[in-house]
């Protein structure tokens, strides 16, 4: 009996281990410029050259990439919808990446305290690339540069939104991707 319990526990443990291994780790996907660490939180920092690799999806996942900043009120208001979507659709291979456009010198004083205060579970990265006129059109030709803005992208489909989302709107847009 003891042996049986041990085997079952082992299977469960191995199962859990395997699960954490498959958890999305952006730093393993694309090497960042640097990682900002403060308190208990790490934020990988990318320039657009690095970040752009995340916009060319080769796996079977659907990525929701949201451009935001802690100082952007409509961005902060819609963040809970992205967090909820990430949890609800995790089993459908949906990953949410929150791309902060906070000023790099505000990571310690604003971004990381915000992530910790709101217990953000989605991956947060900082995009630190002042050459905005070069990279904004590469995200989408139609983007004026105002935030919030969101890209939903999978291997075969890509949509761009320069708008704020309600949960219902976001879920509706996402469903068009995962039924494909």
């Amino acid at each position, binding site marked *: 009996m003891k042996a049986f319990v041990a085997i079952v526990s082992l299977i469960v443990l191995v199962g859990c281990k395997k699960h954490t291994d498959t958890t999305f780790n952006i730093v393993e996907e694309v090497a960042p410029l640097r990682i900002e660490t403060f308190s208990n939180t790490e934020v990988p920092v990318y320039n657009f050259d690095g970040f752009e690799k995340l916009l060319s999806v080769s796996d079977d996942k659907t990525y929701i990439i949201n451009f935001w900043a802690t100082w952007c009120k409509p961005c902060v208001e819609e963040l809970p919808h992205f967090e909820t979507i990430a949890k609800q659709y995790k089993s459908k291979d949906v990953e949410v990446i929150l791309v902060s456009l906070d000023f790099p010198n505000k990571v310690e004083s604003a971004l990381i305290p915000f992530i910790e205060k709101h217990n953000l579970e989605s991956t947060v990265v900082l995009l630190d690339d*002042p050459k905005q006129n070069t990279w904004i059109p590469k995200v989408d030709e139609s983007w*004026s540069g*105002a935030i919030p803005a969101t890209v939903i992208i999978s291997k075969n489909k890509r949509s761009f939104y320069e708008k704020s989302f309600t949960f219902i709107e976001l879920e509706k847009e996402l469903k068009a991707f995962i039924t494909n």
Partner: protein
Amino acid sequence: MKPLKLLVLVAVVVLSSAFTIPSLFSEGYKIGDKASDFKLKNIDGKSVSLADYSDAKGFLIVFTCNDCPYAKAYEDRLIQLDKKYKSQGVPVIAINPNNPINQKGETFEKMQERAKEKGFTFPYLVDEGQAISPVFGAQRTPHCYLLEKTSEGNIVKYIGAIDDNYQDENAVETTYVEDAIDAMLAGEEIAIQNTKAIGCSIKL
């Protein structure tokens, strides 16, 4: 029942599209368009129109605001631009496009405070009723429109960012607005006429 449902659906679609009126203006001005004049209240209480500037050769219209970090990052550079180009006939005219009703930081009083604090050398106008920024098609703060005064009216010559580095003034490689004004004043073609930058969405 089904045709009725369809009818309701059609009605909803038609109605909802009818209510997205601002989209009529979402295109805004393009390069070469003639900009209409406006009459907006300045922080000193007096109203300002482009027509007031009889000697101007053009205008740098900048949609900006009190609270946006990107707008703040450019305030000193706006003052420098005004100092440099006002004497050459191209003054800066700043307009706050945000609706102060839901944003306590964007009220008339806060505009007065901010202008005094920074020592704005240019008018800082209130877009009362949020009527002017949609006509221009301004989408974020800061968002610049360079106008050239001609016999045909005020023609849009450049739309976009002030320069290519919001973070560090000393790391700027291309001074979009300065280059555009210099070319305009020299009667030359402006090399870069449209640029994009991250900014705070305008809250109408």
